[in-house]
């Protein structure tokens, strides 16, 4: 991976949902450098989720280039894209991030199961998971707890640990703080960024909440980078 390449690069992307209600998303250009923390602001319905799906490779664009860590994901087969996602991207959702029936340890280690290269970077996965939990301010001995029994804030931090483990180049967070109160929100982000910087991971966070802007290196508005057309033919 050349160090000069951006962690994420979108160029002339055109996407249309096949066979669904007319919706078209076009992204002329988006670049995220390594180490960057970027907040992508957009109202609901602005195409944020579609953009994230494109970046994660669960959907592919009709034209244009979506490259993560220098690899154009359109060039990969569906199966390879799934593995590529596990290798390159750590994901945090808005809520219900975790498998509620599994314990914290299994939840954190789950992406490594599908990403051998990422797993290889972690010499002692359980120790690493434990260390991440501790730096994210989770109580000791939480590893054997059932994820579904944790508080929402704790669950989000476990999700952060899961995204961080194995230091993937890109961490995508889809409104991870919306279920948290204001003070917990900024504390959560501080912890996330300190870890992502330590691991030299890029963070792309999607939100509709502009109040968090000052904690990020860069703030992008959805309207500035993308164009959506709900009446596309």
């Amino acid at each position, binding site marked *: 991976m050349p160090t000069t390449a951006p962690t994420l690069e979108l160029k002339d992307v055109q996407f249309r949902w096949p066979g669904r209600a007319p919706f078209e998303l076009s992204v002329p250009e988006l670049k995220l450098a390594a180490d960057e923390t970027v907040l992508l602001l957009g109202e609901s319905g602005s195409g944020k989720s579609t953009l994230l799906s494109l970046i994660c490779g669960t*959907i592919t664009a009709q034209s244009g280039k979506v490259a993560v860590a220098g690899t154009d994901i359109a060039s990969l087969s569906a199966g390879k894209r799934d593995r590529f996602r*596990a290798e390159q991207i750590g994901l945090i959702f808005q809520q219900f991030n975790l498998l509620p029936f599994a314990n914290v340890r299994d939840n954190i280690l*789950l992406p490594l199961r599908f990403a051998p290269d990422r797993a290889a970077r972690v010499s002692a996965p359980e120790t690493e998971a434990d260390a991440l939990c501790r730096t994210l301010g989770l109580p000791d001995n939480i590893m054997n707890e059932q994820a579904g029994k944790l508080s929402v804030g704790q669950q989000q931090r476990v999700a952060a640990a899961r995204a961080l483990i194995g230091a993937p180049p890109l961490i995508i967070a889809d409104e991870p703080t919306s279920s948290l109160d204001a003070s917990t929100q900024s504390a959560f982000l501080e912890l996330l960024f300190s870890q992502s910087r330590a691991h030299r991971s890029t963070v792309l966070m999607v939100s509709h909440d502009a109040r968090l802007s000052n904690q990020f290196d860069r703030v992008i508005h959805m309207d500035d980078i993308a164009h959506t057309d709900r009446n596309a033919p």
Partner: protein
Amino acid sequence: MILRLAFASLLARGLTVAMTILAIALSVMLFLGVEKVRTGAKASFADTISGTDLIVGARSGSVQLLLYSVFRIGNATNNMTWESYQDIAENDAVDWIVPISLGDSHRQFRVMGTTTAFFERYKYRSGQSLTVHDGVLMDDLFDATIGSDVAETLGYSIGDPIVVAHGLASFSEHKDQPFRVSGILEKTGTPVDRTVIVSLEAIEAIHVDWQSGAQIPGQSTPADVIRQLDLQPQAITAALVGVKGRLQVFGLQRSINEYAQEPLLAILPGIALQELWQIVGIAETALIAVSAMVIVTALIGMMATIFSSLSERRREMAIFRAMGARPRVIFSLLVLEATVISAIGALLGLALLYLGLLVAQPLIDSAFGLWIPITAPSMREGWVLLSVILAGAIVSMIPAIRAYRMSVADGMMVRI
């Protein structure tokens, strides 16, 4: 780890999963139970008579002859004469011969006249002999030896009087000549249990004052006068025959079947039993079919449960997908889950079966005279269990395919 997650997911849905497992376990238990009863019944059926080489009676069908002479079901269309009996007895090939005379009853049980040789020659369950449980074998002309079911049902004990009715389900009774219970036989699980056995002469004795199926009005010969009479029977119903050498069976059978003086029939009990079982076997096939349907129902129930769990598990599948699991991992997870459920269900069913057998074995034996042996699971049962597990896996592929499609469409974003 995936296996552990699958188990954790199953545990989290404990109640529904337990119900599904229980349904499969019960259906498997039913199926294997029917199998056990079937093989037990078949074995005990084949064990009803052994050691007898030929059964001889008036010419009818082999199954009919077997039914009335051994199972005491139905009636002889005709008797065979005492002369014919003696002719056969004198044949060189004949090692032993036991006459049987049927036609009268006591309550719901048949009365059989025979000689004491019957107790030596009649064998069941591969060569087991009849043994006396209580009292002695009939000794006097008016002594009766009764089967265990007769004693139990009617509450008889040694010394109790028995009045034999003429014919079956008849109101005319041989009241003048009451019998006395002299002995009660050990339970055998054969029709002997439901038989009142008296001497051949006794059958003649109770019919002394009878003609053409009715008592001659006003005539009643006292018992001590009867004792003085010649009670040689004119006819008997059938005879059990043993030959001197195995090779002589067919020759003797042919000579009896071709007996010129009277139309007779000699059958090999083993072959007639097989013929009879083929008739009874239709019910057996129906039973198996029904219990197989029950298993199918349970598996379809499991499929329905998996189907209905899919929508609430979309989030779970989306998380797996987001973490890099391919759609086929989702597919495998569901099939694995169903396989685990069916496997636990099948094994639990087997365990329940043995538990049930342990409890019910003596009950079935005393109620139906059917001894179901408790043996290690047979190869066949192993195949049944394996088929159930496989069928479970196959059936689950239908919801798994749906989950596969859903996870491809949903990706990692689920809007609920």
